[in-house]
C-alpha cells in the first residue's frame, strides 16, 4: 500500500508544487491586504466608511469574507487528487496495478491515504497563510480563524469524498464531463439570477452565514459527519473497484 501511495505522491508532485505556489501567493496577498487596510488605500476607505452609519461594520464584514476566501484558496488544491486517476488512465497503470501483489482494498486504501495526505498539505498551507495574517492584524486571531478554515475545508473534503467513488465507477474521463457540465450550467444560471435579483443574492449570503454558524455550533456532529463520509466513501469505492475488477 505504501508503494502505491508513494506512486500517487510522485505523480502528483507537480500538483503539490502548484499547491505550494498558491499558498505562498495567498500569504503574500493576505499580508498586502492587511497592510493596505492599515496604511494604504483600504485604510483611506475605512476612514471614509467610519463616517457613514454602519459603514465600518459593512466594510469589516466584506474585509473578513475577502481574507477568508483568500485563506481557503490552498484547500482548493484538494481537487488535485483527480489528477491521480487521470494520470493512471493515461499511463495504462490499471494492468500494472492489477498484476501487483496487492488487494483491491489496498489499492483503494492507498488512493484514499494519498488523498488525506494531500488534504493535510492543503490545510497546512491554509493555516500557514493564516499564521502570517494573524501576525499582521488582530482582526484574524489564529485559533478562531483556523477553526473557520478547518470547517470550510471539511465541507470541501466531504464534497471530494462524495466524488471519489464516482471516479471509480465512471472513470476519470466520463466523470469530468459528468461533474463539470452541471457545475457550469448551475454557475451560469446562478450568476444571472444574482445579477438580476439583488435581494436573492443577499438571501443566499445570509443562508450561507447561517449554515456556517450552524456548523460552528454543532462542530462535533459536523466532524462525525466528516468521518462517516470518509469511511462511507472508502467503503463504496472498494465495492465499486471490486465490482469493476477484471472489467476495466
Amino acid at each position, binding site marked *: 500500500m505504501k508503494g502505491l501511495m508513494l506512486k500517487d505522491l510522485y505523480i502528483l508532485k507537480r500538483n503539490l508544487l502548484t499547491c505550494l505556489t498558491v499558498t505562498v501567493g495567498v500569504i503574500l496577498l493576505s499580508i498586502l491586504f492587511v497592510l493596505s487596510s492599515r496604511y494604504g488605500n483600504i485604510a483611506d476607505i475605512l476612514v471614509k466608511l467610519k463616517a457613514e452609519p454602519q459603514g465600518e461594520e459593512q466594510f469589516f464584514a466584506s474585509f473578513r469574507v475577502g481574507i477568508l476566501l483568500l485563506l481557503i484558496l490552498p484547500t482548493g488544491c484538494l481537487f488535485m487528487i483527480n489528477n491521480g486517476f487521470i*494520470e493512471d488512465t493515461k499511463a495504462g497503470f490499471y494492468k500494472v496495478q492489477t498484476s501487483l501483489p496487492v488487494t483491491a482494498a489496498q489499492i483503494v486504501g492507498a488512493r484514499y491515504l494519498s488523498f488525506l495526505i494531500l488534504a493535510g498539505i492543503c490545510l497546512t498551507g491554509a493555516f500557514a497563510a493564516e499564521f502570517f495574517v494573524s501576525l499582521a492584524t488582530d482582526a484574524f486571531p489564529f485559533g478562531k480563524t483556523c477553526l473557520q478554515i478547518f470547517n470550510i475545508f471539511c465541507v470541501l473534503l466531504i464534497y471530494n469524498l462524495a466524488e471519489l467513488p464516482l471516479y471509480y465507477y465512471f472513470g476519470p474521463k466520463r466523470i469530468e464531463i459528468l461533474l463539470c457540465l452541471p457545475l457550469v450550467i448551475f454557475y451560469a444560471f446562478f450568476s444571472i439570477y444574482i445579477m438580476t435579483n439583488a435581494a436573492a443574492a443577499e438571501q443566499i449570503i445570509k443562508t450561507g452565514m447561517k449554515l456556517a454558524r450552524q456548523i460552528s455550533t454543532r462542530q462535533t456532529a459536523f466532524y462525525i459527519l466528516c468521518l462517516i463520509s470518509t469511511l462511507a466513501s472508502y467503503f463504496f469505492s472498494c465495492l465499486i473497484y471490486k465490482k469493476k475488477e477484471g*472489467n476495466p
Partner: protein
Amino acid sequence: MENVIEIENLCKSYDGFSLDNVSLCVPAGSITGFIGQNGAGKTTTIYSLLNIINTDSGSIRIFGMDYREKETEIKERIGIVFDEMGYHDSMTPFQLNRMMKNVYHNWQEDVFFQYLERFGLPARKKCGKFSRGMRMKLQIAVALSHKADLLILDEPTSGLDPIVRNEMLNIFQTFMEEENHTVFLSSHIISDLERIADEITFIDKGRILLSDNKDKILEQHGLLKVKKADLDRVDKADIIAVKKSTYGAEILVKNRSECHQKYPDLLMDSPTLEEIMLFYVTA
C-alpha cells in the same frame, strides 16, 4: 514435469471475438512460446491469466494454486512484462524502485540497479523520455528484481530492433536456466520463439490449434512437395493443409516418418515452425 500454469477450458467473449475453451499447460523450468497472429487471443489469454479481465468460464491454476484464492501470493512470484509499459511517464526508475520496494516483499534493490546499469538505463531520467526498447528493458528489470519464479511476457520483442531483441531473448534464456525458472512468452515473431522456446502453443481466432514440445512439433510435421498429378495419392487423413501452386502443391502432413514410409517417392522436407503455423492458419 510439474506444470506452473494450468488453464482449462477458458472462455471469454467480446463483441466479434471469443476465447473458445482455451486449455494449456506451461511446464516448470521451460520457456513456453505462445504464438498467434495479432488479434488471435494471446493478450486476452494473458490478461485472463492475470485477472486483468474477467473470464466467462474455465479454471486457472498457477503454481498449483487457484488464482482467485491465492492471488496476492501468486503475484508475488510472477514477473510481468506487458507489450506497452504501464508506468507513468513522469516517474523515474529511481522512484519506481522506491515504489516496488514497498510493494514486493522480495524486492532486491541492488539487483534492480544492477539491471539498470546493465541495460544502460539512467535511474533519474523520466520514463516518458525512454525509447520503446528502454521501456521494455525497464519492465524486464522490474520483473527480474523480486525473485520471481515465473516470467509472463506479452509481446516483449515486438517493435524492437534485432539487436535489442536478441539481447532480450538472451536475458529470458539466462533467467530460465538459473534456478529452474519458467518463462511464458507470447509473440507473433515466430523466429524468436523458434530460437529459445522449449514448448510451443499456437492460438488462432481464440482457439488453441497446437500445443506441444517444440522439437516434437518440428520432428512430427513434414512438408511434402508434390506435382499436381500426385496430389490425389496422398491420403486425406494425413493432410493438415495444402498450398497449391501452378506446378504442384506443398502438403503439411501430421506424421513425417509414417508419411515418408507411405510415400517414399515423394519429396519430404522439414518445415520450419513458421511454415507449420502458416499452414495451420490457412488449413
